[in-house]
């Protein structure tokens, strides 16, 4: 399936153009994305550490989960929305960026990990709700979750170093002097797109 026309259409929508042409919108989207992902990972880590028995070991798991997961979902929605808005400003470049693809795969992995938990440890929660830690499968899920989310954060940060953010999508990046290139910051991705331009 050829995604190119769809990606091209996305980055030419008036919404994408508005964000791209604004001095402030992209940095604000990035900021809200960071606030959102900090809350997503922060709340998920609290649940994972409870499963592992590292923290909150005396609190019933089900009570904690119902308390906290609502906030995880709300902040995940905010993070996904801001991420999507950043994506459409330069859809073709992001879509072909290796770190972007890795991040999406890691997010799928995180979702599958939640599915494994729901189908296993969650079903027997009445047996271990008040135990200091979850059964082995619950601990495994929690460990995978912590590792995958840290990897998601790293991949996300790498997108900023390897993907272009240009104000004009169709023309090649102008050959202007780039302070970050002078400093030798990693420029240009492994996907052969134009060198990194603008703030990382």
């Amino acid at each position, binding site marked *: 399936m050829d995604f190119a026309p769809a990606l091209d259409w996305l980055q030419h929508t008036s919404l994408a153009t508005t964000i791209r042409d604004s*001095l*402030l919108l992209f*940095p*604000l989207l*990035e*900021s809200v994305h*960071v*606030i959102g*992902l*900090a*809350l*997503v*990972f*922060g*709340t998920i*880590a*609290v649940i994972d550490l409870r499963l592992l028995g590292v*923290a*909150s070991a005396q*609190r*019933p798991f089900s*009570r904690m989960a119902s*308390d*906290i997961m609502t*906030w995880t979902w709300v902040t995940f929605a905010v993070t996904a929305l801001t991420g999507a808005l950043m994506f459409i400003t330069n859809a073709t470049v992001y879509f072909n960026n290796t770190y972007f693809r890795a991040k999406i795969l890691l997010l799928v992995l995180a979702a599958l990990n939640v599915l494994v938990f729901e189908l296993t440890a969650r079903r027997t929660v009445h047996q271990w709700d008040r135990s200091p830690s979850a059964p082995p499968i619950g601990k495994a899920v929690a460990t995978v979750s912590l590792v995958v989310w*840290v990897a998601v*954060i*790293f991949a996300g*940060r*790498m997108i900023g*170093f390897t993907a272009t953010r240009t104000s004009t999508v169709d023309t090649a990046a102008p050959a202007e002097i780039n302070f970050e290139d002078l*400093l*030798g*910051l*990693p420029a240009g991705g492994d996907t052969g797109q134009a060198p990194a331009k603008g*703030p*990382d």
Partner: protein
Amino acid sequence: MKQFAVWLSTTAPSVFIQEHNAWAIPVVQSIHIVGIAAVMGSVLLMDLRILGWAGADQTLRQTAERFGPWLTGALWLLLVTGALMVIGEPMRELVTFSFWLKMALVALGAVLAVLFQRTIRRHEQRWEDTLVQRPSIKALAILTFVMWACIIVLGRLIAYDHVWGSWSPAVGQ
């Protein structure tokens, strides 16, 4: 400050980070974001407890003792990784308005966090019985959360300091 930044960029640790920037900068930034997540998660759950929107099965003191140490620990992690970023890219950080406003708010946030931990221990009963009900305390809970969110925005704006116009020392150089 600019002279200091230039000097700092010639020191051995700075040169090391500059020479290994391809992995050093993103790795340090990623650890910094993990620390931010620990701060935001801890602040969120303590503030939600004060507001009565989560954690009602725990006392205020239990909540503060559960998340306070993680908040403090994460702030130390952020100090170390933040310092590494300043050492690695002194001009990018020190010659910006966003950075210094951020540092002022971080100092305020850290002081408030320490004071909160202390007063919860010393006046536990008063907090549980009356203080936590006060609208002013609930407003303060929301304000501190918003302040930490603003700190994140300022951190991101370090890379876009020109948005401050003439307030930014990086503009017009």
